[in-house]
């Protein structure tokens, strides 16, 4: 067995493993498509779409989007009203006077910049950790075979079912005893290790034929290298989805930071917005303004990151 495979570097000369993989992929076309084997050129999806069909799709999507956007429209509209006009009878969809001051107030009334920084820090850190540990563990659950693997997996998934309210107090007591309360570290630790990421990645890994990793094993690669060099690059869409969803969940999380972060300078955006909810009443216009500001980073990330959901196809990225 040659050792050249272990020194794979450039992509100009395909290694034995790569060749083997390509051959394998050719061979696994399902029986419903006889004669398909080997055709590998990157072809456009479904051929050219007829102009009529295209218009139809755009119209449908625009109508759908308009409906979907209604609450968001109300949110923006409310953010530009006086607090005592937000929940008026009847509903005012356009403010009578535009209170742009609200968008200034949320930065001055509460330390919004600090909160945004904190939210960003937590979301990014937790996302990176979740994606890494999740996809790492997912490999173990899908590509490795050992006794008790499936039982452990099912149990792992089932724990997602337990609502956090159930074990919130014992968890808090534990963190309190460890001296971690009122630190960002507590939030990071609590959220970075979860079954969700593992589950998502495992399902995606299952769509990658076992033969790929087998061929790489034959080539002499150890499991970690297989994961890093072969499997991981193939799963970009799933990684992108996981990263996005984790980011959004962390960004919007309220209860965790509420319970664990006491000092005001550690607070996140969600806590900051809730501070406008008083004992007997709430300043909804400001809350809505803050919510609008808080949504923008997520929209940006989604817009920029979504090409990874739609990008390149698993197997066609292999050769050349």
């Amino acid at each position, binding site marked *: 067995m040659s050792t050249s495979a272990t020194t794979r570097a450039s992509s100009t000369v395909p290694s034995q493993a790569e060749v083997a993989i390509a051959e394998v992929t050719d061979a696994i076309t399902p029986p419903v498509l006889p004669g398909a084997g080997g055709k590998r050129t990157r072809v456009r999806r479904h051929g050219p779409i007829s102009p009529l069909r295209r218009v139809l799709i755009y119209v449908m999507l625009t109508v759908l989007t308009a409906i979907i956007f209604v609450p968001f429209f109300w949110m923006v509209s409310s953010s530009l009203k*006086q*607090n*005592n*006009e*937000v*929940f*008026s*009878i*009847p*509903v005012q969809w356009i403010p009578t006077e535009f209170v742009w001051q609200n968008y200034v107030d949320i930065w001055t*009334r*509460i330390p919004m910049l600090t909160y945004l920084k904190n939210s960003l820090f937590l979301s990014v850190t937790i996302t990176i950790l979740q994606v890494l540990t999740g996809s790492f563990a997912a490999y173990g659950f899908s590509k490795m075979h050992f006794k*008790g693997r499936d039982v452990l997996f099912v149990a792992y998934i089932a724990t997602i079912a337990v609502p956090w309210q159930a074990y*919130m*107090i*014992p968890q*808090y*007591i*534990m963190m*309190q*005893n460890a001296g971690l*309360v009122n630190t960002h570290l507590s939030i990071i630790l609590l959220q970075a290790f979860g079954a969700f990421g593992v589950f998502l990645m495992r399902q995606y890994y299952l769509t990658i034929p076992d033969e790929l990793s087998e061929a790489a094993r034959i080539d002499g690669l150890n499991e970690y290298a297989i994961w890093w060099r072969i499997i991981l690059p193939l799963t970009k869409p799933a990684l992108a989805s996981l990263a996005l969803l984790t980011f959004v969940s962390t960004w919007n999380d309220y209860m965790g930071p*509420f*319970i664990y972060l*006491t000092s*005001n300078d550690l607070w996140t955006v969600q*806590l900051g917005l*809730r*501070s*406008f*909810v*008083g*004992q*007997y*009443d*709430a*300043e*909804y216009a400001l809350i809505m303004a803050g919510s609008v500001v808080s949504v923008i980073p997520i929209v940006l990330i989604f817009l920029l990151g979504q090409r990874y959901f739609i990008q390149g196809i698993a197997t066609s990225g292999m050769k050349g």
Partner: protein
Amino acid sequence: MKRPILTISAIAAAAGLALTGCSGAGSAQQDEDGPVTLSVSVWNYDQTPEFKALFDAFEAEHPDITIEPVDILADDYSDKVTTMLAGGDKTDVLTMKNVTDYARYANRGQLVDVGDVVDDIGADKLAGIEPFALDDTYYAAPYRQDFWLLYYNKAIFDAAGIEHPDNLTWDEYADIAAKLTSGDGDSKVYGTYNHYWRSVVQSIAAAQTGGDLISGDYGFMQDQYDLTLDLQDKGYALDYGTAKTQQISYRTMFETGKAAMMPMGTWYIAGIAQSIETGATDVDWGVAQMPQLESGEETVTFGSPTAFAVNKNSTHQAAAKTFLEFAASEAGAKAIAAIGVVPAYQSDDVTAAFTALPTDDLSVKAFQEPKDVVLEMPVSEYSSDVSSILDEEHDLIMVGESDVDDAITKMQDRVKNDVLVD
């Protein structure tokens, strides 16, 4: 296989870990001489000026004690304090947001006996002190006492040529509400606005008929429900369904002139003053007594006090008590009266300091006259459970799904069979 052992030890470790935090033993009480930092739990510190006013005034008088507020969001304040205490938190002073919470913490021995503080001030001077009595002593001192009044829009009354609502009965209240309702659609003005909290119907009924909300006998609520439903059915008050599902703000209804009258608590005085100051509204407002069952008798209304208590786990108990005494006494009362919050301590000086009130005779009379303020919800170990049941049935009555008598029967059954037996 190794697994069962692993599982068992995990569980044992879990149980052990989970329970190490809750010894709750009353720990060290030593106070050092010299500068002390007192932590005080508050809600929405930046948006609730009464805390800052109190703390500033206190620190001015006691320069060796610094107050460090522990800011907790108002929305879930009780939940967080419960969690913190479960973990053995050492925050020195705990603000008791309502009497139900107080009852819970006091009964579990989580608070320090502050009977001496109350005696120093004089229990007779503190409005709303009675619910805090437990085992012949007190575990918290009230600094604030809110009660319910009738807010009214002077402009609407004047325009309709109706006398300002001095000492109304409920029938008169309903009549006026009918007369002051005008317009429809976008420009409709309601004669009155009844907020969707159950206390608006149930607590006032209990206070004025002498009914007990914990007892499990709720026939006394019948009349008040009939009145309230009638107002809503006839269109003189905004319907409950809309108000609740769209989270209508009572401030909006009153400040935008959509309601001519509104029963509400005294905490709103500071709120409306602030709205006027910032120019958010220019409503010409006043307060009057809550409508009564019959005319010519002492005004009976309901309310609830807010208090400070000292955490058993605090390491600065003496300093904490000093703060409690300040807050509940005349000095503290004057500090918060100046910003429009109604203190528990009553004296002429304090009333003089309360500048947020409109200066017309009716408002002053309604605010100052001696009245019977009944607690919004009686203190008992069952309060919280009963409250949930009452909330649920209140919902069904007000959206029109249950007849009043059926709902009252159901309330009684549920409270008697599910709660009072435990």
